[in-house]
């Protein structure tokens, strides 16, 4: 069995950051079966996939999901890393491949290769406060990190989840948000960009939630996922609050196509996001984030 360790904090990806089939990165396993479907919002679906054999992943890693004749896309794993039989992928319908994936039904099959990429340094964050900041479809890649942290809740100080979406109807995992909010050992705050007066929650942006959130900036690790503009504003608010650059981690989504560092489409400065990321410390990638794409 492979050793499972955090990998984002190190210069070199850890053992599990390597693709499973180093000799052949392409499909070399049996298809996975869709065993459950959940419609999380009008354009977001979570597929519950059963792997043909034991499957392990680290929070923050992704799989390449393949539909014959249509194409392949990188999708973060959104379920519990401790559950090796139900591997969840939360997918937003934004194009032909994701649309085909969102239309799958129980019993259908999906090509899967992975897991790929670096992971959230969940264990390294122990001993301090953990602030998880998600925007839009950024919550699914963070949920495994939250599951893992909550499974060892007494090893952390405050656990804070801040989540922003476009409207109340776009919020994902609403049942779980309610359950997390009901816990006494967790601070959950949600905001939306626009809402009608019936919405009793916050309207505004995630950086505003940060300014109100309870955490000790000097002893905080922050994990951030969302659209890159939201990430940049959030990082500024974290730094302004006093969280150091080396304890802010991001997951980036660039044009990942091969997932094994061969095609070069996801290059970010000296890094390939599929191979060296998607989870990076902000310190590592800060200078490359604001550069305009050619």
């Amino acid at each position, binding site marked *: 069995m492979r050793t499972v360790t955090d990998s984002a904090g190190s210069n070199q990806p850890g053992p599990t950051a390597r693709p499973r089939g180093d000799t052949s990165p392409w499909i070399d396993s049996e298809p996975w079966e869709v065993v459950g479907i959940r419609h999380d919002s009008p*354009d977001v679906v979570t597929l519950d996939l059963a792997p043909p054999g034991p499957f392990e992943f680290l929070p923050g890693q992704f799989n390449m999901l393949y539909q014959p004749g249509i*194409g392949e*896309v990188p999708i973060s794993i959104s379920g519990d890393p401790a559950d090796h039989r139900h591997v969840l992928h939360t997918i937003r319908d*934004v*194009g*032909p*491949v*994701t649309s085909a994936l969102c239309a799958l039904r129980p019993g259908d099959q999906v090509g899967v290769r992975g897991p790929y990429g670096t992971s959230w340094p969940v264990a390294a964050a122990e001993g301090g406060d953990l602030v998880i900041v998600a*925007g*839009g*479809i950024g919550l699914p890649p963070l949920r495994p990190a939250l599951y893992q942290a909550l499974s060892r809740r007494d090893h952390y100080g405050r656990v804070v989840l801040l989540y*922003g*979406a*476009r409207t109340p109807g*776009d919020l994902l995992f609403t049942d779980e948000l309610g359950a997390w909010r009901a816990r006494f050992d967790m601070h959950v705050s949600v*905001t939306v*960009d*626009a*809402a*009608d*007066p019936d*919405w*009793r*929650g*916050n*309207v*505004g*942006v995630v*950086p*505003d939630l940060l*300014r*109100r959130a309870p955490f000790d900036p000097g002893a905080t690790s922050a994990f951030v996922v*969302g*659209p890159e*503009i*939201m990430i940049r*504003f959030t990082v500024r608010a974290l730094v302004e609050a006093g969280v150091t650059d080396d304890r802010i981690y991001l997951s980036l989504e660039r044009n990942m196509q091969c997932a094994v560092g061969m095609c070069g489409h996801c290059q970010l400065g000296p890094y390939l996001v599929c191979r060296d990321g998607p989870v990076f410390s902000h310190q590592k990638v800060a200078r490359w984030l604001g550069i305009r794409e050619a």
Partner: protein
Amino acid sequence: MPQTLEPLLRDHKFFAGLDPDYLSLLVGCAANEVFPADAFLFREGEPAQTFYLIREGKVALEIAAPGRGVLVVQTLGEGDVAGFSWLIAPHRWEFDGRAVEPVRAVRMDGMCLRAKFDDDPRLGYELMRRFARLTVNRLQATRLQLLDVYGRAHGN
């Protein structure tokens, strides 16, 4: 011995680090207020002579739009300040401020404050700096909202 509002001002983020002498001066312009859910702290178009330090609860900044109902622009919460209009002429509220849930706040009298700023420009400068910071944060937040960053992306 009657309790003053000075500890409430000192504990609020907006006044963090302010010279205690100035806090003593400002407390004369402060009053405690409680609003039940759905009560209005202020209404669009009315004279703006106050601002509020929110201690507890949520306040929605809203505007009524014909054909679209009431739109919530932003929600403010504990530690936030509601109200800039008292500071700049013509001193009229630009939005409705409605308590989404029961709200405890300290109401600051703008006319009283402006008089103190005129008497002590150093105090005025310090408070203006704080309001400028708040204004910039709100402007950036509004820009981020306008960018609609969670809008439908095109991809695979």
